Structure formats: structure tokens, C-alpha cells
């Protein structure tokens, strides 16, 4: 099926290069002006929950990337075969299957991280970004653009997660990727002057940081500001 679809692309659009302007935008747009988290406000739940540590955010982003690419490719490949009346269920089954695969792989190879991510890997199924892209994009586009769209959106999700996790881990636990940055001798407990901001470890601070990112983004690009 996949080879068939790629040859189709070549026959119908022989002049369009793989990284045409249109295709590049599929990757760059979700990183900035149509970012799934800050602009479309999707996938917020997981962004709050698993951004206490950079490592967790990274593994979560990788998982979402894998599920996005897999889901977009499969749905795009099957787009002419999927019966319209059951298409949402088909998408759900595909996403659920991929998520279970990812969960099993994490449990086998990065057991400790998978314990910390706990239910949130399973909840990728309900992540609106994925179903949204399948329904809005993969169902109506060829394999290559769908692949790019998946990468773009997953990366758009990932960078926000990583930035939020960076600030939360640094100010909340004084570390980055589990490596202690702020020395123990600075701590009030050891006679120093510094204290971790425990608020950073709690979910509300993730919302505040996401809010700040949205603020910066919209003040730099006035077109993003909605008029009411």
C-alpha cells in the first residue's frame, strides 16, 4: 500500500520537490503560529502532568512523536479504504494500538521512566492533538505530507513540554535531566540562602509557564491575538 501511494505522488505531482515551500510549512507552522499547545490549546493535560522532570517530558515527547507518525501514516495509507461511517472508530483503534505498543516498549526498555509516566502514556490515546491531526489532516492527504505534519505537530508539542519541564525541574528541584545544578551547600537546610520553589513541582505552575509562553508568543506576533 505504501509503495503504491508514493508512486502516486510522483506521477501526479512530478514537479513538487520533497521539501517544497508548502511541505516545509507543514513542519514549521505547528512549531510556531499553529502550535498545538499554545495556539490550539490541545494536549494541555499531559503538558501539566509530566513536565516535572526534563527526562520524563523527553520520553513523553518521543512517545507522542512515535504515535503521531505511526497514526498519520497508517490513516493516510488507508484513507481511501476507510468507510466514512466508522472512520473515528478506526482512528481510535489505530491510536490505541500504537499507544499500547509504545507503553509495552517503555515497560520493557525504560522501566523506571515508564513507572513515573504511569497513566499518562495510556492517556496519549485521549490526547486531542493526535486524533485532531488524523481527522483533520491524514484522512485527506498523501503519505509524505502526513508524515511531515506528524513530525511538525509532535515537535510543536515537544518543545513546549521541554521548555516547561526545564523551568520546572530547574526551579523546583535545582536539577536538569536529574543532574544537580544548584549545589547542596546553597540550601537553607545546610546553612545557605537558597530554597527550591516547591510550587514548581505542582501542576499549576506548568499552566503558568505555558501562559507565559503564550504571552510572549502573542506579543511578538500580533496576528495571533484574537479580536473580541
Amino acid at each position, binding site marked *: 500500500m505504501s509503495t503504491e501511494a508514493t508512486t502516486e505522488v510522483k506521477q501526479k505531482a512530478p514537479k513538487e520537490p520533497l521539501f517544497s515551500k508548502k511541505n516545509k510549512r507543514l513542519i514549521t507552522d505547528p512549531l510556531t503560529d499553529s502550535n498545538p499547545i499554545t495556539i490550539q490549546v490541545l494536549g494541555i493535560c499531559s503538558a501539566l502532568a509530566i513536565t516535572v522532570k526534563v527526562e520524563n517530558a523527553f520520553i513523553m515527547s518521543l512517545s507522542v512523536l512515535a504515535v503521531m507518525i505511526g497514526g498519520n501514516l497508517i490513516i493516510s495509507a488507508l484513507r481511501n479504504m476507510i*468507510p466514512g461511517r466508522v472512520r473515528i472508530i478506526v482512528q481510535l*483503534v489505530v491510536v490505541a*494500538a500504537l499507544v499500547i505498543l509504545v507503553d509495552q*516498549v517503555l515497560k520493557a526498555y525504560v*522501566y523506571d521512566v515508564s513507572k513515573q509516566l504511569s497513566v499518562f502514556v495510556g492517556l496519549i490515546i485521549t490526547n486531542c492533538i493526535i486524533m485532531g491531526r488524523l481527522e483533520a489532516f491524514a484522512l485527506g492527504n498523501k503519505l509524505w505530507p502526513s508524515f511531515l505534519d506528524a513530525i511538525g505537530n509532535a515537535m510543536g508539542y515537544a518543545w513546549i513540554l521541554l521548555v516547561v519541564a526545564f523551568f520546572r525541574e530547574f526551579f523546583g528541584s535545582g536539577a536538569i535531566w536529574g543532574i544537580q545544578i544548584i549545589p547542596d551547600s546553597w540550601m537553607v537546610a545546610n546553612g545557605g540562602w537558597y530554597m527550591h520553589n516547591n510550587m514548581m513541582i505542582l501542576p499549576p505552575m506548568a499552566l503558568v509557564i505555558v501562559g507565559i509562553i503564550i504571552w510572549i508568543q502573542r506579543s511578538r506576533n500580533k496576528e495571533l491575538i484574537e479580536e473580541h
Partner: protein
Amino acid sequence: MAINKDGNGYTFMFSIVMVAVVGVALAFTSQTLKPLQQENEKQEKMQNILAAINVAVEREKAPDEFGKYVKQRIIIDYEGNQISATDGDIDPKNLEDAFNIDVKKEYKSIDKEERNYPLFVCEKEGKQYYVAPMVGTGLWGPIWGFVSLQDDYNTVFGATFDHKTETPGLGAEIKEPMFEDQFPGKMILDEGGNYVSIGVVKGGAGPDNKHGVDAITGGTITSDGVGEMLNRSLETYYKYFNKQ
């Protein structure tokens, strides 16, 4: 050959084929990765048992260290009689081996009189310690732990707890050092040698209380669960120790 893609027949066929393909793919992955996952769980269990005698190891190194410290694995019954004792390497198929007893599964499915009670005899720096696994019920789901006793069969040497779904910041605090570090030095017997267990005291146990630890603020039900788990489990081990 034109197929009516909106017809019922096509829709049914498509769904059946899809479910079959997905089912096979998932079953295959699950079977392939199972050995790795079970190995991880086994290592974690060893890590927890070692943590109960205050030996901190990384999960990957747990099997080597486990062999060094754990000298004997005993199963006892509810009345405190020894059923079996094994040492040396762990054979995953040997159901007489205390390490292979799934206490969580037995807690869910068997009455307490019928359960197996594993006990791990450890040796550290020339002294013997007894590690008792235990399972109980928290607020949202199971809680479990490992408690080690010194060779007077009375004084707690270390304790480690974990949970499945307790509330973060409240009940989930039972797995934090702040809670676990209260246990070393506590006694399960009173001065007359009678069994009193260790209580988890709401409002705080006084510093002189040899049989109580502070409960967790906002985690009353989880704390009570830990207290109940300790009382019920340690009683069986007490019966066993009494017969030694």
C-alpha cells in the same frame, strides 16, 4: 470492480479485518516483550527487598547484590509454621521459592488464613535481618511494602513502602523517606514480649512512642491502610518468630 464503500458489508469486513490485524500485532508484541518486562519487575522487587535492609542499589545491579545479602528465602503459613526454605539461585518456575510468591495476587484472591507468607533472611555486616513483604489497601488502590526486623525479632531495621494510585502529595507520601525513615528503631513487641505492632498515629506519635509513627496529614485513609497492613502482616511473622 466497484465496491460500495458505504455499504454495511464493506464496513463490517473492514472492521473485522482491522480488529484481527491489530489483535495479532498487539499479542505478538506483548509476548515478545514479556520476558524483558518480567525481568524488570523481578529486579525491582529485589531492589525493594534490599532497600528494606538499607542497601541502596540501582535496579540493574539488584540481582547481583541480592545474592550477596539474601541468604535464605522462607515461606511460612498463617499459623507461623515454616513450609519451605530455599537458598542459592532463583528458579522462576519453583513455586516453593518464597521469591516467586506473588503476595499482591494472593492478597486479592485468597483469604488471609490460606495465604503464603514469604520471609527473606538477609545478612549484612555479620548481622541477620528478616525482611517481610506485605500488601494492604490504601485509598484508591493497593499499597505494599517491605519491613526488615533485627535478629531480636522485635526492632525494625528499615522499611520501604510503595503504592499504585495514592494521591500525589497526600497518601503517596508513604513512599517518601520522610515517612519511611520513621520506622528504624521502632519495636513490634512491648516490654512483656506481647505483640503490639506499629501504629500509624493521626496527630503524631510522641518521640517516646516505640510503637507508633506519625501519620500523613491529608492522607488518613492511606495511613490507616499502612497501619492495618503492618498489624495484620507482622502478626503472622511474630507467630513464626515465637516458634524459633
